[in-house]
């Protein structure tokens, strides 16, 4: 039976080698993960923050996090997703804390016990942008409901993120309030982040709902103008919260809390207020406001 023996030997040896390699890459992977990136000095001193593309793409976190790391020696690893995905990552225990913007579902997750220490961190507003000549004529209208109804009446292209992000959730809620059925040929649900959606809107000469931060960050390469703003229904509240360590004992709750306390402190709030892009303030301190 030499052939069978040979087969068995081959299988066993390749399995042994496979596991050795897995272990090797596993270990080296982890070591290299921290050292290779030049973060040796932080070792295990890091937290994983799941957040929305709006806080990351606007550059705010790249502005805040180095100050925090400098003071506390804790590195912040940022995963830019969308509000829905970030809430999911946090509740699965794949992140230590989250920074998102959909107050209603945030409070629901907090009530279910997934997150603790939730604070209103900051706010800005949503705006409707579109082609400079405003073909649907929404800029003089009284409120956002009228504006959306006008777009629907004119059957003008409207681009939706369609990715279950905070912005997308707000937009769907506004359409609901407007009593407009969006299953129409002029309504494009593209399932992408805010910047991609703005670029798509720019190319299709359509309208879209965006947070002010992302729009300001990339408006230089868009021909889109702010056509509607200022309705109370367009306020955009960001909340920060830690993953509940009772649910996920492995999370770095202490570090997460250090980060949250830093951001809601006077210093953190001032830093948020001082961040601007091309002279425009993008986020306003929101701690302690209702």
């Amino acid at each position: 039976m030499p052939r069978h023996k040979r087969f068995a030997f081959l299988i066993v040896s390749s399995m042994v080698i496979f596991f050795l390699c897995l272990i090797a890459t596993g270990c080296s992977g982890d070591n290299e993960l921290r050292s290779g990136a030049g973060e040796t000095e932080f070792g295990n001193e890091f937290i994983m923050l799941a957040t929305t593309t709006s806080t990351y793409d606007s550059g705010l976190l790249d502005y805040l996090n180095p100050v925090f790391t400098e003071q506390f020696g804790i590195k912040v690893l940022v995963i830019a997703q969308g509000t829905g995905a970030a809430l999911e990552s946090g509740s699965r225990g794949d992140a230590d804390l989250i920074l998102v913007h959909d107050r209603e579902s945030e409070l629901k997750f907090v009530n279910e016990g997934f997150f603790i220490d939730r604070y209103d961190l900051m706010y800005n507003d949503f705006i409707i942008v579109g082609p400079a000549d405003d073909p649907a004529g929404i800029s003089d209208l009284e409120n956002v409901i009228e504006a959306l109804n006008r777009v629907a009446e004119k059957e003008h292209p409207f681009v939706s993120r369609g990715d279950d992000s905070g912005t997308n959730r707000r937009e769907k809620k506004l359409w609901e309030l407007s009593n407009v059925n969006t299953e129409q040929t002029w309504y494009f649900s593209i399932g992408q982040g805010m910047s991609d959606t703005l670029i798509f809107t720019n190319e299709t000469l359509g309208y879209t709902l965006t947070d002010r931060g992302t729009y300001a960050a990339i408006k230089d390469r868009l021909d889109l103008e702010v056509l509607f703003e200022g309705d109370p229904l367009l306020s955009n509240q960001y909340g920060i919260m830690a993953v509940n360590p009772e649910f996920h004992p492995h999370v770095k709750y202490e570090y997460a809390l250090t980060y949250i306390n830093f951001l809601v402190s006077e210093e953190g709030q001032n830093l948020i207020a001082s961040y601007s892009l091309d002279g425009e303030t993008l986020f306003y301190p929101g701690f302690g406001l209702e």
Partner: protein
Amino acid sequence: MTRLLDGIVEAFRLIISFDPELIHIVFLSLRVSIAAIIVASIIGIPLGAFLGLKSEKKTRLLNKLIFTLMGTPPVVAGLVIYLFISRMGPFGVLGLLYTPTAMIIAQVSLATPIITGLTMVGVRSRGVEVVEVARSLGAGQGLITRTLIMESRIAILGAIITGFGRIIAEVGAVMIVGGNIAGQTRVMTTAIVLETRRGNFELAIGLGLILLMFSFIINSFLYNIQGGGKKN
């Protein structure tokens, strides 16, 4: 048009000046994909050689399965691995999600079927002949195996290079399991996605050029060892 030109000029400046961010991303890409291709080769080459020596009729279903896996869409591989290594998944306790190790695992799962399948085809086309000749010349089992690997080396090298070309250019799986964290799990392809989204076309184009350059080097090498398909 000027944006594209400006982007290319700036991209060359970044490459020539060894921009640290760019270099770091390129090296991480290489490290992850090389580690993955080594693991995939260690699994795939013996498995492919073994199957190649078996009669095609007996292993037909398995062959078809391997060929199907060769075309696994990367996002599907990424999704499956995400579900396995997420904290709520069966291997969640290892804490592998959003680490380079997770990206290596995803790429191993993509490259292994390719290496197995191509090695199998290469060995099958010449294997039986080689084994018979070697045996008739009185070679022992060890020598036969070594001869077989030597005789199939072009096919095996081709398999490894094809696998490498696929995983280094792949974006779907590493985006899902790596999370595109700056300085940690950001590789060339995920960085291109991000920088395009952010409008930093210079870095995106620079990385794109480097990726194309790698592709050229890899494929030239493959072309040379295979002699462009001419009979030798």
